[in-house]
């Protein structure tokens, strides 16, 4: 047996070694990484010694090196601050434009927020934004996107918040049309990027603006939320109309939104408490 083992040919040895190498090559790197980690752990003292020697050879002048490190740290810090300043300036400029265009928002505190995720599929139409309770956000505050109302704050964490879009199936807003004399009606979210106004007494033309009516303490003047995309007779009552509304902007493509904080720090009532039933 011993002789047989010794007599293995060079070619067979090469084949076995190559096969072992191939197995090693195709083994998941999670496993082989552990082997490498074990080697590093076992020989950590000589490796650490080698590292120290390498560093000591490079640090010929300790004082100069420390000064250089400090300078680099400050330079990096200044670069970070400059980038932050530029970003803040852009936000201020964007908010100033909104104020300029919307005089009704002149007294409101506007909080710009980046969209983290946008869920537009099915009946749940929500955005997750990177501003929260720490930034003054509260429930039911209105959210602007491209100068139109896109939804309301539905949940607030300390640093994040969830925005319920007007097309969400749980959304319910009092709206009016641009036609004068129209009483507010409820607009319900229908999911899939649409909202509906049911049992409307007035027939609205396609493309007509749908405005969210003013909510004292939350929204000081009516603002556009969407446009009529379809108006058809109600199935049960031929005198009433079912109106389909599409948001006034492409919400799915919004990189950032603006939250209207009209009553910072104040007690905010829910919309239903504040408004009562529409038409009252």
């Amino acid at each position, binding site marked *: 047996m011993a002789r047989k083992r010794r007599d293995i040919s*060079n070619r067979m040895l090469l084949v076995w070694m190559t096969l072992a190498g191939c197995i090693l090559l195709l*083994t*998941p790197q999670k496993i082989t990484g552990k082997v490498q980690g074990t080697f590093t752990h076992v020989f950590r003292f000589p490796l650490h010694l*080698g590292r120290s020697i390498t560093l000591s050879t490079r640090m010929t002048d300790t004082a100069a090196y420390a000064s250089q490190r400090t300078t680099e740290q400050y330079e990096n810090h200044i670069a970070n601050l400059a980038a932050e300043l530029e970003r803040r300036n852009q936000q201020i400029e964007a908010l100033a434009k909104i104020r300029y265009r919307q005089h009704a928002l002149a007294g409101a505190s506007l909080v710009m927020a980046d969209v983290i995720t946008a869920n537009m599929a099915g009946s749940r139409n929500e955005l997750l934004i990177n501003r929260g309770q720490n930034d003054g956000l509260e429930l039911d505050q209105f959210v602007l996107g491209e100068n139109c109302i896109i939804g309301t704050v539905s949940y607030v964490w300390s640093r994040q918040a969830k925005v319920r879009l007007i097309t969400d199936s749980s959304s319910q807003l009092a709206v009016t049309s641009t036609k004068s004399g129209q009483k507010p009606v409820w607009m319900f979210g229908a999911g899939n990027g649409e909202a509906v106004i049911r049992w409307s007494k007035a027939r609205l033309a396609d493309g007509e603006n749908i405005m969210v009516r003013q909510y004292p303490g939350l929204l000081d003047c009516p603002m556009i939320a969407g446009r009529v995309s379809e108006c058809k007779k109600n199935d049960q009552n031929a005198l009433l109309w079912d109106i389909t509304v599409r948001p006034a902007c492409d919400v799915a493509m919004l990189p950032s939104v603006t939250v209207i904080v009209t009553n910072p720090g104040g007690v905010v009532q829910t919309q239903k408490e504040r408004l009562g039933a529409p038409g009252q």
Partner: protein
Amino acid sequence: MHWLRFVVLLVVATLLQADLLNAIEVRGTRPDLLLILLAFFAIFCEPKEAIITSFSIGLAADLIGPSMGPGTLGFGLTGTGLCYLSKYISLQRMPFQAVTIFVLGFAAAVLAYLLSGLQTQPSYQKTFGALFGTPLYSAIVGPFLFLPVAWWMHIKIERRRRRFGY
């Protein structure tokens, strides 16, 4: 072949290669001790010993490398190839050994790069330093290290001197 001496030599070379050689790097390039050992054993050992040492050195290179597998196969196959090739060409003179180390290092780096492409997360990089710099630096210092390695491994190497006259 003194295998215990080989293991000690391999461990020491691997540890030196892991970090200590950074002290003598030139423009981000440093010599590869494992490549020099690979060339030494491929030139001066019998085929069976050369195969085992080549793959072992490749495994050691992988232990301190970005991933495991490419180095083992790259070093193993190129070392074995050099061993068989050294039967037909004389590699006793230092310039030839230097050229051999350079070509061997280049071939092993290319092979390791290609083989790493088979992995889920390719790790070897096709940089100028990896393909040319390290083999060149190793080729310059390698032949001078053959003598102490031969002394440690108790292997006799013959160096032919240039003959003058007729």
